[in-house]
């Protein structure tokens, strides 16, 4: 598996962890690769507003930090803490968080 595909898997696992921590038990996932990047999208129903949605949105839309990437991306998906969400934010270019009618949808995009 290439480095970029490994990162896609790690990002997906990290977001799955976020959904599971918020007691979302049925998750629809989509991972699509493009010419110069990939998009990861997850969707699931949630009884109450998940914790720290604003923080998540801010994190995944924060500027990329290249210097963290090759050193630390291996930590993604290992424990689902705030530190890993921050790391996820430093690896993706942009993202979108939606919570409408009890459905949480998170999409992140990364180019390389």
């Amino acid at each position, binding site marked *: 598996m290439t480095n970029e595909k490994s990162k896609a898997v790690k990002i997906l696992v990290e977001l799955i962890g976020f959904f599971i921590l918020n007691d979302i038990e049925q998750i629809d996932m989509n991972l699509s690769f493009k010419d110069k990047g990939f998009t990861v999208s997850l969707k699931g129903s949630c009884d109450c*507003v998940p914790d720290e*949605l*604003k923080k998540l*949105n*801010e994190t995944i*839309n*924060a*500027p990329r*930090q*290249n*210097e*963290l*990437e*090759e*050193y*630390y*991306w*291996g*930590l993604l998906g*290992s*424990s689902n*803490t*705030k*530190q*890993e969400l*921050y*790391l996820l934010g*430093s690896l993706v*270019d*942009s*993202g*979108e*968080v*939606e*919570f*409408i*009618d*009890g459905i949480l949808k998170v999409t992140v995009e990364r180019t390389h």
Partner: protein
Amino acid sequence: MNKPLVMARSLKQQALSTLTLEERKGFLIVTEDIKYIIMIAISTFILASSLIFNNPYEILFGLRDIIFSPSVLVSDYFVIGNIGAALFNSGVLMLSAIYISYKNNVNMNGPIMAAVFTIGGFSFFGKNLLNVWPVVLGVFIYSLARKENFNKYLLIAFFGTALGPMVSQVSFGIGLNAPYSIALGVFLGVFAGFLLPPLANHFVSFHQGFNLYNIGFTCGIAGMFFMAILRAFNLESNTSVIVAEGFNSVFTIYLFVLFTVMLLVGIFFSVDSFKELGRLIKQPGRLVSDFVSAEGFSVSLVNMSLLGFLTTIYVLLVGGELNGPIIGGIFTVVGFGAFGKHIKNILPVLAGVFLASLLQIWTPTSTGALLAALFGTTLAPIAGFYGWKYGVIAGFIHMAVVMNVGYLHGGMNLYNNGFSGGFVAAVLVPIFDSLKSMKK
């Protein structure tokens, strides 16, 4: 029906165009330029202060002695060269790291600040103007081979200079003829640098981010392999402890001046430093905890200065000596005040190491015990994440482990405590996780 909650995706563009993260959070504006200027000012202070201790002629000859020394653990450049030369060496390497960061369009964030201070600190006892560059070059060549931007590997290059003594030891310490030995030392440094990026990323998951000096673990493994090969050819690394004594008064003043200025600058740029610090010390500090991006540059500077005061006072209270390695340790803790360490999470580890030095065979004032205390704070995230009692246990065990792993790499890896910390964290974290889950 739940209230719709939809968030726009334009924040990224805003952040990139006009707003910094700190502005968005309502902090006083600390632009990247200001951060760079402050870091340059600190480095320049260290560089210029070399003239307080020695004249330029002495500094030049001191630098020559430093550069041609094997530099393995523990080589105090205050003794090998002189104090002025060691400060000059430190200041130049810090400024070089800042310049490289700037040229690679990297923000002055927590990990970069930690790296700059770590380079500065270890430039008092192991890193010098000659031995760091082959490792950096090796990482650079790796980035070229991967067709990736060097800034993705910058932290690995900076922290990877822990293997500088490998270059110096092979060049000047194992008895080979000079031109060939230098060529071999440089080649090994470049080769080691080329190997570091994949290893660093691989080993970070070994301790799950609970060992802040991850490169120390990586370089320890790499150094262990290189040393094993050298020993197979009957080439032994002669380690020794060379440390200066009798400079406590002058360096207490020196460090307190530096940390006071950092504290005042941090307070000047803070809105409410107490409140911001209160928020910062709630973070466990586990990798990746960039305090500068998450909490702000100013409060990070306050935190760094407080860590500087705390560690200096610890050394003085236990009766230790402020020499090159110890000041290097203090600088490293200060640097990681922007990247994972704060008073709340390092105190339990310090207490654990101190307790160990009372009960185990090492005295608290010995250089090894003091280095274990200062650099043992690599395990601060354990205290931050699991609680202070666990931090004390980690510190206690770290003391015993760190005294046993140096032989493996023959002193070629300067981050011996990071090497030990990797093992300690990898063993303790699953146990602590298990204990925590049983309590639940």
